[in-house]
């Protein structure tokens, strides 16, 4: 794989996209071939879910490709729009009251654009603390001025959480894109691709292993499919994939292995947390078939990434001193 490392950036990108779209086309071809077979209702349901996931993956891959082609500004905007849609889905299923109106306006129309402006300007020090420090103060102040003490802590905590996951977490993806590692300029996109790939690998492996192993769920009331054994296997898969992708990143093989494990592990744990939030709101998914609100289930797809990205971003910056 040392030979791959010697290719220039453009060739590596082309190679990655060829592999990505090649695999997707292969999977789609197999899916089409299978769709003509007769299936039992249970298999049919599983197949439909698979097709939905596949469609989302296609969409994600195409979006990612557009982001790469169009450059930093467009991809920052693109992630900003995703943030907006995800936060809209999150707050739809969250109980807020009239007194929260101004705080919600603040979140959508001031915090969200500002956070992405900070990313675009590469002001990473301010970007990291803007939401946890300043917005954390501003939101409850505005809510308190709304003059409604009923369930105050619960309401502000939920808004704050929505902001952390949907804006703070998501904005770390374009931050990786714009993080110009010294001596590895233009490799930011690889960092995002690396992150997305290892998190997706951890999720897919954990999910399919969990279905096959039938080992004891770690938290039965939250998720029936999450078990520690499945989680470890998912993390191992993410680590393996991370090591296999090291040539595209600024990392050494061992560092890539550890970072893959870290990102994959935090992503799948984040997914577990989102499941708990969904149980609390009384829904099975944020969107999809049985949705009352017409949410498309974007949050289901990006939640793991939103949890993994800040951890990954911080470790990379801190460890390498960028």
């Amino acid at each position, binding site marked *: 794989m040392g030979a791959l490392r010697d290719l220039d950036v453009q060739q590596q990108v082309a190679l990655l996209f060829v592999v990505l779209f090649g695999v997707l086309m292969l999977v789609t071809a197999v899916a089409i071939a299978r769709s003509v077979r007769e299936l039992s209702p249970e298999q049919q349901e599983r197949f439909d879910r698979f097709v939905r996931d596949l469609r989302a993956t296609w969409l994600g891959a195409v979006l990612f490709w557009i982001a790469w082609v169009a450059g930093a500004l467009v991809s920052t905007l693109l992630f900003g729009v995703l943030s907006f849609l995800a936060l809209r889905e999150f*707050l739809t299923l969250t109980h807020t009251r009239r007194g929260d109106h101004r705080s919600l306006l603040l979140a959508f129309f001031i915090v969200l654009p500002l956070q992405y402006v900070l990313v675009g300007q590469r002001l990473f020090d301010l970007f990291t603390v803007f939401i946890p420090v300043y917005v954390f103060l501003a939101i409850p102040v505005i809510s308190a001025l709304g003059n409604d003490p009923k369930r105050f802590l619960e309401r502000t905590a939920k808004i704050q959480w929505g902001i952390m996951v949907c804006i703070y977490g998501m904005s770390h993806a374009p931050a990786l894109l714009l993080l110009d590692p010294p001596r590895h300029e233009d490799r930011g996109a690889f960092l995002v691709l690396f992150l997305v790939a290892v998190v997706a690998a951890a999720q897919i492996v954990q999910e399919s292993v969990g279905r096959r192993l039938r080992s004891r769920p770690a938290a039965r009331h939250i998720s029936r499919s999450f078990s520690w054994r499945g989680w470890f296997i998912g993390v191992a898969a993410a680590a393996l994939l991370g090591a296999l992708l090291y040539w595209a990143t600024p990392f050494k093989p061992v560092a890539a292995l550890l970072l893959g494990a870290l990102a994959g592990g935090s992503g799948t744990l984040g997914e577990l947390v989102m499941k708990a939030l969904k149980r609390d709101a009384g829904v099975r998914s944020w969107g999809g078939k049985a949705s009352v*609100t*017409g949410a498309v289930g974007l949050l289901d797809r990006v939640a793991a990434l939103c949890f993994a990205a800040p951890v990954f971003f911080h470790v990379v910056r801190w460890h390498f001193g960028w």
Partner: protein
Amino acid sequence: MKLPEAAGLLLAFLARLITGAQGHWHGCPPKAEQRIYFANHQSHFDWVLIWAALPSDLRATTRPIAARDYWTSSKLKHWITREIFNAVYVSRQRSDDEDPLEPLMQALRNGDSLVIFPEGTRGNQAEPAPFKAGLFHLAEAFPQVQLIPAWIDNVQRVMPKGEVVPVPILCSVTFGAPLQLQAGEDRHDFLDRARRAVIACKDLG
């Protein structure tokens, strides 16, 4: 494309961006028949939401009701309601020689569809207030026009009474099965049945 048309498209886009404006057609398909849609009323945004949830070819012939004194008080308000929405103006002050429903009847005679909020005012309770009699009189005078109940969900969170800027929260409009005035049905019974049909749409969504 003329300016009102472009402004209408922009407005529909904004409504979709902010609320999703999902239309769920459960009792009837979105067809170009003459209809009266009647729905619960919680916010100024209600009309825009129903309008944005309709397919674009139905928007041109579906008209809202606007209070003349409020919606013609400034040039902008008048322009929006007249040019974009083609609103039917009614006056809120009763005069003896004029039927307040006459402008609505006129629009129905022209073949237009209407959207009305039979509660008469914006409510903030979970269930709609009792319906006013206008719906009954229209149903009586135009038996061939379909009456479609609709439930608008979540919109009170987008723009509560007294606020100006909407918050992006997903909303949906659920359209139920057409209703008909039964032969010899009492006014009170009919209005109660219509109100229950609107509430029933809530659970269909």
